[in-house]
């Protein structure tokens, strides 16, 4: 029975798989990042079909908006010109395909076997409850996540910062 | 005042206070370390004065819940067996600080921090009444010791320290397994006193006995797991050797007393003869091997194997004289071997050589020092009037009472002991003076201050051993009361091993 949710799901699924598959095989990293960006937007769509509006928003704002842009910057920062001409794959990629395929089959078999009891009662859902939960029960983890992010920001800056002495030395060599 | 907790954590906290001191002013660091060690010693004196010698119960007990899901307690206490070791620890640490005054020139701050930390953990080992807590201190003590040997040691220090660490760790891990098994078998508790109330099946006792044996025998060290000791002693700095010989290896024998004997009395009884045989091999083997050593510290290290053989022989004689003699001999060995290592450290500072061949005629150059060393030598060979005699005699008497052959073989250790110690003394202090030793400074005031307390203890314990023995009587009697006096059906080592098989 083909219903709207199923059609929507099929659309998103096909797009996600296609975009992901394309992303991992493109030669140009910039293309790969852009394909993943598109894929993330479709992921947000899937989340909407699952009633997770807040997460869909987060997926778009944080993942697509922030993280992938960061990737894009970094890709530009490294030597893109040579990158486009060099070999995409490592030498042993055919074996890796097999491993990935086997994993998928194993997981799929597991999904097929699994019996998930679906409860009838409709528990409270939606952004409101999510917010209440986050700021009451999960307040401490929430704060910790904030600190982790802050640390990551500082750490990322520290790592990416050019060591002035080293840089000048490098430039002199050039 | 929770005096035992204070004794454990005061040096550790004080070590933290040493850390921010300016590393370019070592004098101040040393002064603070000395002040801490001396105050720790003074703090431990109430243990001596207000100890009640008429009861076998634990004293100065502190008991707090700690990790509730596993029923772990923070429980401390001392009885007549352990109280003396706490005092010995605090005393020897003071001397170690003093003797390291000049000899530790590199990173003095870190050295004294490690030393004070070590002191705290060792006191913890002797006071812990909870197996879990005990195990923590038992392993924690390895870390500062590892550093002391590995950072401030001699040329082969890395080999020695890694060997020391791995050797002891292998033994300890077997004990850890034993502790967990015991925890399950003894009603989910780590409380030593509660565990000792139970009676375990004989096969379990044997298995656990051997698991604990692995840890304790390495530490003692009993033959044939003694080979870490010569390397560790030889490479360790003076203070390290003193702590190692004086206190650390006592923890093994202490473990036998505190755990093996009260927890597994039947197994102990069955294992009496194998243990005595191992002890005797240690006595003779350690003594004989000393004869051909050419390195002073190595020689003293092997002599420790021989002397600790007497200790375990006494403990496993399983009678009053043997056990009390064994405990006394542990303290004696701490004092005497500690003193010998201190003395060697004092000459090493001047000559920078440990080879016996580089010495000779030292008595003409350093006469006062020669006198001290003579006293320590005599104590090491157990001359009456020194503490060594009382311990060895009681041990031999105990061994003779339970197995006369054991005393006969062990007594040969007295002959061998006199041989290697006097030969050492002759080659170092007598004979025509070695020209290389001309112009060596005589012993100074600080060094005399280091040696005098130990020399005094040697004589005081030699003439009035009851000062110490009085502390033990009740506790030892209580301990021995737990061990069946009747001979088990068959006591041969083969039989005992066979009982281990499923």
């Amino acid at each position, binding site marked *: 029975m083909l219903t709207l949710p199923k059609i929507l799901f099929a659309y998103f699924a096909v797009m996600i798989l296609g975009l992901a598959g394309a992303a991992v095989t493109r030669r140009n990293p910039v293309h790969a990042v852009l394909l993943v960006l598109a894929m993330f937007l479709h992921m947000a769509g899937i989340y909407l079909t699952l009633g997770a509006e807040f997460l869909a928003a987060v997926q778009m704002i944080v993942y697509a908006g922030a993280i992938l842009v960061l990737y894009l910057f970094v890709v530009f920062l490294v030597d893109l010109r040579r990158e486009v001409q060099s070999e995409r794959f490592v030498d042993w990629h055919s074996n890796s395909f097999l491993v990935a395929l086997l994993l998928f089959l194993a997981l799929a078999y*597991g999904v097929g076997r699994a019996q998930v009891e679906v409860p009838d009662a409709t528990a409270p859902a939606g952004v409101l409850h999510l917010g209440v939960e986050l700021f009451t029960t999960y307040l401490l983890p929430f704060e910790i996540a904030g600190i982790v992010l802050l640390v990551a920001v500082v750490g990322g800056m520290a790592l990416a910062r050019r060591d002035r002495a080293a840089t000048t030395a490098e430039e002199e060599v050039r | 005042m929770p005096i035992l907790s204070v004794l454990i954590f005061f040096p550790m906290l004080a070590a933290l206070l040493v850390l921010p001191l300016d590393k370019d002013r070592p004098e101040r660091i040393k002064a603070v370390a000395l002040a801490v060690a001396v105050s720790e010693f003074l703090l431990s004196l109430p243990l001596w004065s207000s100890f009640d010698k008429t009861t076998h119960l634990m004293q100065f007990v502190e008991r707090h819940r700690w990790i509730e899901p596993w029923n772990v307690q923070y429980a401390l206490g001392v009885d007549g067996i352990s109280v003396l070791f706490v005092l010995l620890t605090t005393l020897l640490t003071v001397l170690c600080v003093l003797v390291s005054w000049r000899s530790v020139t590199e990173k003095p701050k870190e050295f004294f921090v490690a030393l004070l930390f070590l002191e705290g953990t060792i006191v913890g080992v002797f006071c812990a009444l909870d197996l879990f807590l005990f195990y923590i201190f038992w392993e924690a003590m390895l870390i500062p010791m590892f550093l002391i040997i590995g950072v401030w040691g001699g040329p082969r220090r890395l080999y020695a320290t890694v060997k020391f660490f791995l*050797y002891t760790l292998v033994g300890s891990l077997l004990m850890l397994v034993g502790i967990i098994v015991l925890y399950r078998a003894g009603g989910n508790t780590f409380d030593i006193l509660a565990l000792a109330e139970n009676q375990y099946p004989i096969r379990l006792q044997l298995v656990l006995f051997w698991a604990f044996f692995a840890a304790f025998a390495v530490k003692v060290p009993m033959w044939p797991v003694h080979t870490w000791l010569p390397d560790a002693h030889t490479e360790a700095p003076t203070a390290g050797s003193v702590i190692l010989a004086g206190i650390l290896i006592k923890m093994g024998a202490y473990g036998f007393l505190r755990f093996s004997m009260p927890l597994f009395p039947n197994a102990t009884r069955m294992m009496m003869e194998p243990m005595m045989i191992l002890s005797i091999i240690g006595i003779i*083997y350690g003594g004989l091997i000393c004869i*051909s050593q050419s390195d002073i510290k190595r020689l003293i290290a092997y002599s420790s194997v021989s002397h600790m053989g007497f200790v375990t022989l006494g403990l496993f004689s399983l009678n009053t004289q043997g056990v009390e003699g064994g405990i006394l001999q542990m303290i004696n060995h701490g004092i005497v071997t500690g003193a010998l290592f201190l003395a060697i450290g004092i000459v090493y500072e001047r000559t920078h050589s440990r080879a016996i061949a580089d010495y000779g005629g030292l008595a003409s150059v350093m006469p006062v020092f020669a006198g001290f060393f003579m006293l320590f030598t005599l104590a090491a060979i157990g001359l009456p009037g020194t503490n060594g005699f009382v311990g060895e005699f009681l041990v031999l008497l105990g061994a003779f009472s339970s197995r006369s*052959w054991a005393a006969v073989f062990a007594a040969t250790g007295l002959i061998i002991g006199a041989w290697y110690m006097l030969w050492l003394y002759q080659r170092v202090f007598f*004979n025509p003076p070695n020209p290389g030793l001309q112009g060596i400074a005589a012993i100074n005031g600080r060094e005399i201050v280091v040696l005098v307390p130990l020399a005094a203890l040697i004589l005081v314990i030699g003439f009035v051993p009851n000062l110490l023995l009085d502390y033990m009587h009740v506790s030892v009697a209580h301990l021995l009361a737990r061990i069946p006096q009747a001979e088990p059906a068959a006591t041969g080592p083969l039989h005992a091993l066979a009982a281990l098989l499923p």
Partner: protein
Amino acid sequence: MPLYLVLLPLAPLLSFLLTLLSGKWMGSRAHRLPILAASISLGCALAAGWDVAHGVVTDADFYTWITAGDLQVSFGFLVDQLTAAMLIVVTSISLLVHIYSVGYMQGDPSYPRFFAYLSLFTFSMLMLVLGNNFLQLFFGWEAVGLSSYLLIGFWHQKKSAADAGKKAFIVNRFGDFGLSLGIMLVFVTFGTLHYQEVFQAAPGIVGQQFTLLGLTFELPTLIALLLFCGAVGKSAMIPLHVWLPDAMEGPTPVSALIHAATMVTAGVFLVARCNPLFELSSVALNVITVVGAVTCLFAATIALVQTDIKRVVAYSTVSQLSYMFVACGVGAYSAGIFHLFTHAYFKALLFLGCGSVIHAMGGEQDVRSMGGLKKYLPITYWTFLLASLSISGAPGLAGFFSKDEILLMAYTTNIGSGRFAWFIGLVVAFITAFYSFRLFFLTFHGRFRGSTEQRDHLHESPPVMTVPLILLAVGAVTAGWLGSPEILGGHSMWDHFMAPVLGRAEAHVPHFTEWLLMGISVFAGLSGIWLAYHLYVRRPELPGQLRESFSETYRWLVNKYYVDEFYVAVLVQPAINCSRYVLSAFADATLIEGVVNGVPRLIGRASGRLRRLQSGHVQHYLAAMASGAVGLLVWLYLV
């Protein structure tokens, strides 16, 4: 407890400590305190002797030393007739040696140390004889060993002296090994170490057995033999006699005090003290007699050919000590102690005489470079002559009475080996007289054989040395009169005095036999003197010829029957080799270390193989992880 008993050992102990501490400051005055202490001790000893002579026997504990279980031992004093005699011997000889040393040791850089050690020795010896239990005996026993070690090695820069001190200590340890086991066995048997309690209970153990090392012994025999082991070591009996001749490396006053008069007789004292135990075992008594007799002959023959003046006297000491053991072995403890008493004086005199000679010769000890010293050293000459006569058993002198009593007792005893011992004793009496006078003639008569330098240096010793010689000479002559037997018009005072402690061994023989035996032994002694006179004064060329014709025997004697070499080859060298090659190199470094280092090495090698899996490519790691995950899933589904 009377005050003088406490003072008796305490005075030398304090003197030891104070002299050691203040030595640097006292310098050449360091002898004052030790001499004062020795005098105090002598006074106290005389007071103790007076009390005992009036029947007061003291047995009191000073304080409890060791308590452990049912073991309780004290430092305590037992003063009875035996102790009193020993006290007087020890303190009197000690005082004289102290005084003598003032002259002999003058100018030595370690003068204070020497006197400190002498005081330590006096203290130790007094503790040994005063003790009222076995452990205190052992305390003194080891402490005199220590003082002996220190004094033999007094000139420790000399390797031979340091060697000799060490050898003395270690050889003695072999004896102590038996003694300590004996003491333990006494404790295990009787449950106490106090003499009085042990001796009272002693008869109760007759017939009991004890298994040691799988061998079953009669309990009394085992105890007695183990205790005797200690005596063998301390008194230098075969087979532990090797240390005493070497001990002559020490200063001569030390040899006189320790290695002649007092310490070496501690073994005899031990046997005599424990006579209630030894009496229970005829096996042990026979062993003592035979060991004594054999050592007696053995040492005397070696003494025949020695050329070092002190070594001759040392071997004669071994031989005289053996007489004392023969006496104890045949049950005549009183005679043994009597000989100990007289021997102390004439042997100390001999040694101090030797010391005077060596002093005059500037340290030379070889008799071959002496001779004709009579005119240079008159006082030494005359006192030495008296001592030699005394040891040879010349009638009327001290040695005569004591030796004669021993021979009489050995002849009349019912101990199996008594007659054998008597015969040996007689032979040795002859040999003793011969070598004593050989030494005497070689030293004092004939022509001076040393260098002219030495001749110019010759002088009689100062009065501080000769006065002790004269006093000892008085002792060497008169000490024996205390025990002159009834047939010579005496009253056997000594035996009566000792009877309460040592029992009374009566010789039940007709007066004629007694006269005959006495005559034979006197004849043996006198003929020995005559032979020495003949060989070394009248026909000085003869000894050389004899040496030629019995060269093989001579070689064995000069080399002391190669006993030292035997021990080195059988005990010392194998032990060193075993230590170096078997234990150190093989067992420890190869076997145990092989396992200890081998296991980590094995792990290291295995991990080296496994390491090749580690390429460094992070993707390989993840691929392995993913394969693992797949494997896990499959396993999960299958199970």
